């Protein structure tokens, strides 16, 4: 997988233009000689974008190149006015990391920093096929995360990509807006007969690969890979080799299609960008970056599972950023102090049963709202049975429904009993009592 994400720094990667391509009122308003690629313009790298890239690398367990640089990658296309993209070639900021998935670990080959290109809109104007160019996005900082070829299914590819988005959002360095192109997924797919695997020997990669590009949703990624597996299997079973090419995904037809055939390896003629002096991380600077690194998101979930017996699948729904997870931590501590169940709380929030906003309301309001929602009044079983008898007597139809198997009328009956008693009672306790009476 190759995943790109636009960093949400205030300014662009190599100039001071505003980095806000999705909210710009007009095209070509956040532009200057640097991001328009005018001759003689001098790019200067954005320190924060570099620090964020290292932060991401650290969160992915990467090693950091203490000496790094930017290189020019040459190709011609109208969205790239300089004729080259500033990227990183042999010394990316981060390399050799790992991401855990439920199918097994996936190695991270590298994380590097580059600049995004302008945006092209293809149109027909006066009968001519033309492209319109907007450079508001040109030179927006873009991180690229490249994985090892260690992903073995569409489901794993999807889980890996979602996990990366979760980690990036947690670090609060990118919005990862897939629809707008703030995060872009690319899968390189090739198949191999597992029978050719020799015991204890690493498989050599197949002699072809198909690039699935411009995917803007996890679901399409999964479906596109599924389609490719089927398509390539068919070709391979005929004894042929799939063509090395770039394909796109058509969601309506649920199939992939040829975008362009690759003849030979691309020749980008990389070389170190002479405009940009290299970057050296000294201990002090690295220390500053490391100290700004939040607790790893995986560790947060494991800690919560251990301390509060809450399911990761639920807590995952509640927050995105590290700052938000810190607030949840405070809420959990507060709940525990008041002997309230954190597990019940997270479920109530996830099921939208509390009229609160976790990251707007203050902790006291949040805890009190939850407290009220679970508060029960004191009443004995004996007293309750009196009210139950009364409710059952006047709701014969509901009783008949229940006896015929429509168990969901229990909600109704329990509600009626509480109204009759003018008391709030725990539903489990009440339904148990009602069932006992109905069955006696």
């Amino acid at each position, binding site marked *: 997988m190759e995943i790109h994400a636009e960093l949400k720094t205030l300014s662009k990667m190599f100039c*001071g233009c505003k980095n806000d391509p999705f909210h710009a009122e007009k*095209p070509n308003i956040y532009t200057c000689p640097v991001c328009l690629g005018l001759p003689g313009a001098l790019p200067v790298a*954005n*320190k924060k974008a570099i620090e964020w890239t290292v932060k991401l690398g650290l969160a992915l367990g990467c090693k950091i190149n203490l000496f790094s*640089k930017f290189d020019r990658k040459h190709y011609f296309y*109208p969205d790239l006015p300089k004729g080259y993209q500033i990227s990183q070639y042999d010394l990316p900021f981060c390399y050799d990391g790992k991401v855990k998935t439920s199918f097994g670990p996936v190695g991270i080959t590298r994380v590097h920093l580059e600049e995004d290109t302008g945006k092209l809109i293809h149109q027909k104007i006066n009968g001519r096929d033309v492209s319109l160019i907007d450079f508001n996005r040109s030179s927006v900082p873009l991180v690229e995360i490249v994985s090892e070829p260690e992903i073995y299914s569409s489901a794993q590819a999807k889980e890996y990509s979602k996990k990366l988005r979760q980690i990036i959002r947690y670090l609060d360095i990118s919005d990862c807006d897939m629809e707008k192109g703030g995060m872009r997924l690319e899968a390189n797919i090739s198949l191999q007969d597992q029978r050719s695997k020799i015991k204890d020997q690493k498989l050599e990669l197949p002699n072809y690969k198909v690039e699935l590009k411009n995917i803007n949703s996890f679901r399409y990624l999964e479906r596109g890979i599924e389609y490719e597996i089927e398509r390539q299997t068919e070709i391979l079973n005929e004894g042929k080799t799939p063509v090395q090419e770039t394909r796109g995904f058509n969601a309506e037809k649920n199939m992939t299609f040829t975008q*362009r055939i690759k003849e030979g390896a691309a020749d980008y003629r990389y070389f170190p960008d002479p405009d940009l002096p290299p970057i*050296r991380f000294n201990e002090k600077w690295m220390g500053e970056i490391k100290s700004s690194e939040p607790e790893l998101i995986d560790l947060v979930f494991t800690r919560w599972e251990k301390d509060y017996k809450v399911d990761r699948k639920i807590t995952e729904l509640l927050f995105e950023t590290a700052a938000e997870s810190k607030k949840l931590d405070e809420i959990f501590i507060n709940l525990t102090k008041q002997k309230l169940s954190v597990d019940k709380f997270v479920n109530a929030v996830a099921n939208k049963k509390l009229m609160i906003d976790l990251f707007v309301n203050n902790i006291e309001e949040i805890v009190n709202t939850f407290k009220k929602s679970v508060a029960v009044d004191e009443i004995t079983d004996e007293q309750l049975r009196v009210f139950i008898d009364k409710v059952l007597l006047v709701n014969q139809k509901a009783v008949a429904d229940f006896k015929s198997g429509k168990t969901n009328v229990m909600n109704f009956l329990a509600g009626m009993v509480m109204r009759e008693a003018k008391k709030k009672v725990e539903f489990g306790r009440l339904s148990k009592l009602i069932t006992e009476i109905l069955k006696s």
Partner: protein
Amino acid sequence: MKKIITKELIDSLSKLAKINLTKEQEEKYAGEFSSIIGYMDEIKTLDVENIPETARVTDEGNVLREDKIEPSFDQKQTLKNSKNTHNGYFLVPQILKED
């Protein structure tokens, strides 16, 4: 001097650079490039055993900027030198990406 730059290489370089060359120019440049590259062979004879590899002439490093927004061009300024524009966009003929 031996010809190290072939016509094929000139052909592929001109394609990468998007410069169309005539047959005569290809011949001519193959020769000229060969003599330029050939000169590198002479440099290769120098003893650089104890000189570290470098891609730069200065020891400069960490020339960075803080993440601060500076004024940009406005749209009019941006498009000023372009002959073909449309509703605030640069307009170019449609090109299929070769990559």
